[in-house]
């Protein structure tokens, strides 16, 4: 069983089990309240699931892509929870979770996942389909693009079925992590998928004042 957290869009927290599926899932759509709601949502998800912390085998977290301030709250919380509980953290690409959910619902074929990156840009990841275990196969991305540039940014854009989503399900993140673990696939790396450099430019030197 895993506690699963994703804050790449709103805030989503779930407790999942490989056999039982999603035991409980809570969501908060507001994309500006991650730090406020994360603690209560973890507490509530655990309480409602009836699963003791000691029964968890780890914490799954969505690593983005996502707008950085919110994304970090979920990753920080997952790491700290895992540290406190003495459990491992397993990381997945948030878009992979979306694709997993899409395919798990019976859909097939090439898929383009698109989420809001703010500042009039979108994050996107292209999937060719699923492997024999039903795990999504990433073909391109994740990437960052202006909406109008997307057809040019994605190779074979018209061949994908486009899926624009505004929420990421932590249950999907958790269940995908269970699948990756079971089938010995690679998890995502420790770096959050910000896909943007910090907003900063090197100064050309002090400005004159006189």
């Amino acid at each position, binding site marked *: 069983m895993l506690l699963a957290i994703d804050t790449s869009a709103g805030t989503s927290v779930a407790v999942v089990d490989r056999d039982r599926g999603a035991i409980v899932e809570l969501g908060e759509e507001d994309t500006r309240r991650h730090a*406020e709601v994360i603690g209560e949502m973890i507490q509530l998800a655990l309480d409602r699931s009836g699963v003791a912390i000691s029964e968890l085998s780890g914490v799954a977290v969505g690593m983005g892509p996502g707008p950085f301030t919110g994304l970090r709250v979920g990753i920080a919380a997952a790491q700290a929870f895992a*540290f406190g509980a003495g459990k491992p953290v397993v990381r997945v690409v948030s878009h992979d979770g979306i694709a997993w959910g899409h395919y798990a619902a019976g859909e097939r074929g090439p898929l383009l996942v698109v989420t809001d990156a703010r500042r009039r840009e979108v994050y996107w990841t292209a999937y060719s389909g699923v492997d024999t275990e039903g795990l999504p196969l990433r073909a391109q991305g994740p990437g960052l693009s202006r909406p109008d540039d997307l057809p040019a940014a994605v190779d074979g854009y018209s061949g994908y079925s486009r899926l624009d989503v505004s929420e990421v399900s932590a249950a999907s993140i958790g269940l995908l992590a269970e699948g990756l673990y079971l089938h010995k696939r690679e998890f995502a790396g420790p770096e959050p998928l910000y896909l943007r450099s910090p907003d900063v430019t090197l100064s050309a030197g002090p400005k004159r004042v006189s």
Partner: protein
Amino acid sequence: MSWQLRRASVADLEPIMELETGTFGDDAWSSDAMRSDLANAQCYYLVAERVGFPGVIDGYAGLFAPQGAHEGDIQTIAVAEGARRGGLGRTLMQALIGEARKRGADEVFLEVRADNPGAQHLYETLGFEEIAVRVAYYQPDGVDAIVMRLRIPEPQTQPAGAPELKGSRSDPATPASTGRFFGTTGPLVLGIETSCDETGVGIVRGTTLLANVIASSMEEHARYGGVVPEIAARAHLEALTPTFTAALAEAGVTLQELDAIAVTSGPGLSGALMVGVGAAKALAVALDKPLYAVNHLVGHVGADVLREDGSAIELPTIALLVSGGHTSLLLVRDLVSDVHLLGETIDDAAGEAFDKVARLLGLPYPGGPEIDRAAVGGDQKAIRFPRGLSLPKDMEKHRYDFSFSGLKTAVARWVEQRRDSGEEVPIADVAASFREAVADVLLTKAVAACLDLGVPRLLLGGGVVANSRIRTSAAERCAEAGIELRIPPLSLCTDNGAMIAAIGAQLIEAGHEPSGLSFGADSTLPVTVIQG
């Protein structure tokens, strides 16, 4: 009969003089001499007030011990006739010895009349030894003075049962005077601080510092000449778990032993704060421990309770907090329930001004230590830079507020004029004069607040306190004005998690309820909101 010892002030002059003349007769000090000692910050006078009889002073004693002088002198001690043989003299002496130790003294000296064997015996039992005789010192009786010296014993190591202490701090000293025993009492709290560019995790037990680990992203900001919020926040996320691990190892405690977790909820950089808040909440849930949200600025004041000598902060106090992000003057009546903002900067923080002036002088970031270095050998009076908000009309409206933006521009203009006319810029003089302008306005306003409000105590906090001129200027101004100056150790002046843990422990000990899990990160949290 029982007595309560308290620090004497000029208000106690009358009963003290009554006792002084009654005890010493012809030898008695003049009222003026006594008043001057009572008002001198380098002195420390105690009075013993009879419990249940406010204003009845049955004894007093005074110490002269400038901070950092490594030696102290017992100036005087007297106990009223009817109060003798109850151990009051010994208690007063022990308290003064404790204060001398606190002020860094290794030795304490005193003189005693050769015809007073009772007093000599008391001093011997306290560890004083005779080192010299001053012949016919006491006039007009012509009595010799015996000079005695106490070598202050080495501080005791930590009490049995306390965790092993390692890392960034030395062992605490047990104060000789109060007998206050610390090290094994008080709540065990882990504090998390991520309001700016330092990832701080500290662990305290009550007022005892067990660990203070800081991971700084300062170097990553250096090339930009200032803290880049997004870079700071990314660095917090990376540093947090390793910092937890290091702090627990340094303190020698486990997560399960913690009584509570405390976290900075503001003020500070929003994205940076959220990393700490998110992590703290999840950690609290995972461990099923209470969580306390703490105000960063109050944390800076709270750092003072972690002093290794264990001397309790005396309240009320004025606090001057100066860092790269804040320049605030506070009136602190109670650490957990009564902090009042007197004033703050209306534009740049003092630390920011240091960074900006360093840049225009071609010096690297962070500017504070660079300006400090560049100012060596410079003349601080070479250039009279403006003192922000110090004109009479400003003092009406902004008596305790600061402004450094105009100062920075004035320095820039002065440097440009020099460069334009092809003259060399005297970097040392500019650095010293600029630094003096900052120190002057900071201390003038802080001392004014102490005097206006009748609070003869000033506490400094924040990273800019590392600046040598600000420290010496504070010492001078406070000594002149009879204000007691407290500066926590530098490792506790810069942003750190230990100060947040310390306030958490204070909140718990004062019976405050935990903050729960629903508080947010508030980049503009007012200082009056001590618990977020």
